[in-house]
């Protein structure tokens, strides 16, 4: 049904989805503000939280993008056994449930972690993971994979012929950089920075677990506080507005910098270039090894703790796992349909507001969204009946911005390369979707679907507001922790991680094979 809509009239479908998104996000905010009978002013501590939020998000974005560049380049231009598997593996932290990731980071960088053991053995001062540096470390850990993937896709979007042509013209690496790589990076990097900035803008659990204290308070935490303890919906709505304002400001800012890459039509990426030999080979190897260690060590540490106990997990945990998997799959499919509709409309190029609406979910506070929906819908449905569908829908929406970042460039390229040809052949509707759109976009679609499924799997957020007698796996994890069962909780964390990862792998692999 939805597929028919976007295939036949992509612009109208995209506009409808975008308008729906904007209405939902701004409407729920309005509902919260109305319930509170207006917005409330912010105190000095709220403003401190706003500044800390902006600062840490900006730094996390810069660091993630800067560190991702050499890694993405190394992955783009080197071929080695297991490369494809490594690319998938390096994506893991981004889809790790936050609580699992924090356990892993503490296991490696904590007071008793391997890093500090090593530093102590060498007589060097210890590194404290608690404080603003811990928040940034965690954010880079989460977002380096996303950054690497987005930049890598930029690299792979450069047609192989360009590299071959450059090679036959005897380009030195510096010339390659100037003529091929730098234009691509100029197009991709602002978007990467923006994506990470926006993700970090709504950070909540990371800042609270590793921030060390209230000087590292984020806006989302202030929103939680307003809900949970003060029951000050007006302040929550104001903070929600501030968050959305920050998002729009950052997007306006990066729109002026971003220049889309236009390389024309070409063969597929599979025959990509080989990188230069010499010291650059060593540098590439170092980049790959360092990134792999940084990203996978914490995950291995968590796995080592929890894996042996997985078979002993009680049956309720497995039931919750099954429920979560079904919800994640539905959520991912919904996200894909919405995402493709939006990306095709955005690729037609005329509606900047559609892209802005597509990015809105990233900064919409899940707490405001959930509460707003609760206020709007409770007169119509019982909250028990709402819990699961609303969670599925919100998770799909929350995954849209990530999917869009991967899909928009590909959809633009598709439109530029095949749009006129398809138009001239009068290929429209389902035929065009099946023969051109889906095959050409299979890889980013697989990536987007994988992200959506994994993020939905690990999400705790909304279900706690609507919680019903049908708990999800992340909720079970918290229940275990809340009843002192820390070892069972670590096993549950590994199970959650394995399932999230398997879901992502299935989609991503499917996209590559298609």
């Amino acid at each position, binding site marked *: 049904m939805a597929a028919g809509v976007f295939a036949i009239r992509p612009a109208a479908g995209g506009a409808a989805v975008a308008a729906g998104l904007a209405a939902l996000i701004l409407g729920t905010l309005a509902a919260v503000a109305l*319930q509170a009978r207006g917005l409330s002013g912010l105190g000095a*501590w709220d403003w*401190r939280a706003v500044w800390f939020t902006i600062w840490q998000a900006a730094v996390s974005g810069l660091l993630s993008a800067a560190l991702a560049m050499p890694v993405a380049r190394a992955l783009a231009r080197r071929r080695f056994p297991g490369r494809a598997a490594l690319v998938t593996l390096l994506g893991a932290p981004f889809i790790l449930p936050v*609580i699992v990731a*924090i*356990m892993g980071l*503490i*296991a490696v960088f*904590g*007071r*008793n972690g391997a890093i500090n053991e090593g530093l102590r053995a060498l007589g060097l001062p210890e590194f404290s993971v*608690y404080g603003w540096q*811990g928040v940034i470390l965690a954010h880079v850990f989460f977002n380096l994979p996303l950054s690497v993937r987005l930049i890598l896709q930029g690299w792979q979007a450069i047609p192989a012929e360009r590299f071959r042509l450059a090679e036959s013209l005897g380009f030195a690496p510096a010339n390659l950089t100037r003529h091929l790589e730098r234009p691509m990076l100029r197009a991709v990097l602002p978007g990467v920075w923006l994506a990470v900035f926006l993700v970090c803008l709504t950070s*909540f*659990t990371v800042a*609270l*677990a*590793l*921030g*060390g*204290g*209230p*000087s590292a308070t984020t806006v989302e*935490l202030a929103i*939680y*506080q307003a*809900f*949970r*303890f003060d*029951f000050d*919906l007006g302040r929550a709505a104001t903070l929600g507005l501030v968050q959305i304002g920050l998002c729009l400001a950052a997007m306006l800012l990066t729109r002026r910098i971003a220049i889309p890459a236009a390389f024309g039509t070409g063969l597929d990426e599979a025959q990509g270039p080989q990188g230069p030999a010499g010291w650059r080979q060593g540098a590439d190897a170092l980049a790959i090894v360092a990134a792999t260690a940084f990203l996978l060590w914490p995950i291995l540490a968590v796995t080592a703790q929890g894996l042996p106990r997985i078979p002993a997990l*009680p*049956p*309720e945990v497995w*039931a919750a796992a099954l429920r979560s998997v079904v919800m994640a799959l539905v959520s991912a499919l919904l996200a894909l349909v919405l995402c493709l509709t939006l990306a095709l409309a955005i690729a037609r190029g005329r509606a900047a507001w559609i892209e802005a609406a597509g990015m809105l979910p990233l900064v919409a506070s899940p707490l405001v969204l959930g509460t707003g929906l*609760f*206020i709007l819908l*409770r007169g119509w449905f*019982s*909250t*028990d009946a709402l819990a699961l569908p609303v969670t599925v829908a919100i998770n799909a929406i929350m995954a849209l911005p990530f999917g869009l970042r991967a899909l928009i460039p590909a959809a633009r390229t598709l439109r530029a390369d095949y749009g006129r040809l398809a138009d001239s052949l009068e290929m429209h509707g389902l035929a065009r979707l099946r023969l051109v759109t889906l095959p050409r976009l299979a890889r980013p679609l697989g990536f987007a679907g994988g992200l959506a499924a994994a993020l939905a799997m690990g999400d705790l957020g909304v279900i*706690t*507001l*609507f*919680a*019903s*007698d049908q*708990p999800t796996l992340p*909720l*079970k994890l*918290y*229940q*275990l*922790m*809340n*009843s*002192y*069962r*820390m070892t069972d*909780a670590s096993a549950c964390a590994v199970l959650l991680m394995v399932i999230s990862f398997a879901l992502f792998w299935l989609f991503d692999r499917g996209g590559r094979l298609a």
Partner: protein
Amino acid sequence: MKTRAFALALLAATPAAAQDKPVLTVYAGDYVASEWGPGPKIEAGFEAFCDCDLKFVTGEILPRILMEGEGTQADIVFGLNTDVTARARASGLFAPHGQQTGDLSLPVAWNDDIFLPYNWAETAFIYDETRLENPPSSFDALLAAPEDLKIVIQDPRSSISGLALLLWVKSVYGDGAAEAWAKLAPKVLTVTKGWSEAYGMFTDGEADMVLSFTTSPAYHIEAEEDLTKRAAIFPEGHYLLAELAAQLKGTDQPELAQQFMDWILTPDFQSAIPHANWSLPSRLDQADWPEVMRDLPRPETTLFYSEDEAESLRQPALDEWLRAFSQ
């Protein structure tokens, strides 16, 4: 254990039998209704005689009930905390519990006619005696301890135990609370959102002490046969934290709701609490407590603020706390 939990899950999945029975809707904290919380025991225990279907609805109780107002489906609210009852009371949504509270096994007198405590504990710092050989013997000693003694606490803006610590420090140090926080802050490894994250860090060996409850060692002793986790008992006193139940004025099941409130203080209910919630029963002779709870070291002094005091102290104490951590 596993079979029983599984059987309970099966029971929960067969609503047909319960269809004609009246439903008592109980809003409860999320941990309450999980199979590791007291919920299943409470549900089975009450349904054994009420000829009704007790249904837990979990989530953030207080925000939800305030949002729903008089249209709420709840008949009972289970798991509110002391220190935040002022707001709930002001809503006017709750009805008196109708119980005699003169002989509770609480360390403070209780004369609230709306909110009924069903279990309690005091805040305490927990340590592992194999890792911390000389734990501070008083709050003063904790403040004076070297900075490499690391503790984890919870954020008073998102956690009820974090708020209890705020009031604990206030009740011990009064006007000197800001100064006390300034001394404590360098020893705070990190501030977590909730109790569970902090406690996990402690059991992982990240911190020497964690803000938790006097009853926490009971879990380790009973469930893990681990005798090394202890609560540091301070002569200055420990702050009381009780969990409360209340019935809604607008309930459509007034008789069932009252029956539930009447049941809370009975030995039948009270004897289920210590193991299910790892806290102390609110009306049970100490002689009838489980041995593990009886044997726990008890503080000599219990500190507690009335609802109004807690409400008026909260904001200024929070400002002091924020300032101490922003130096």
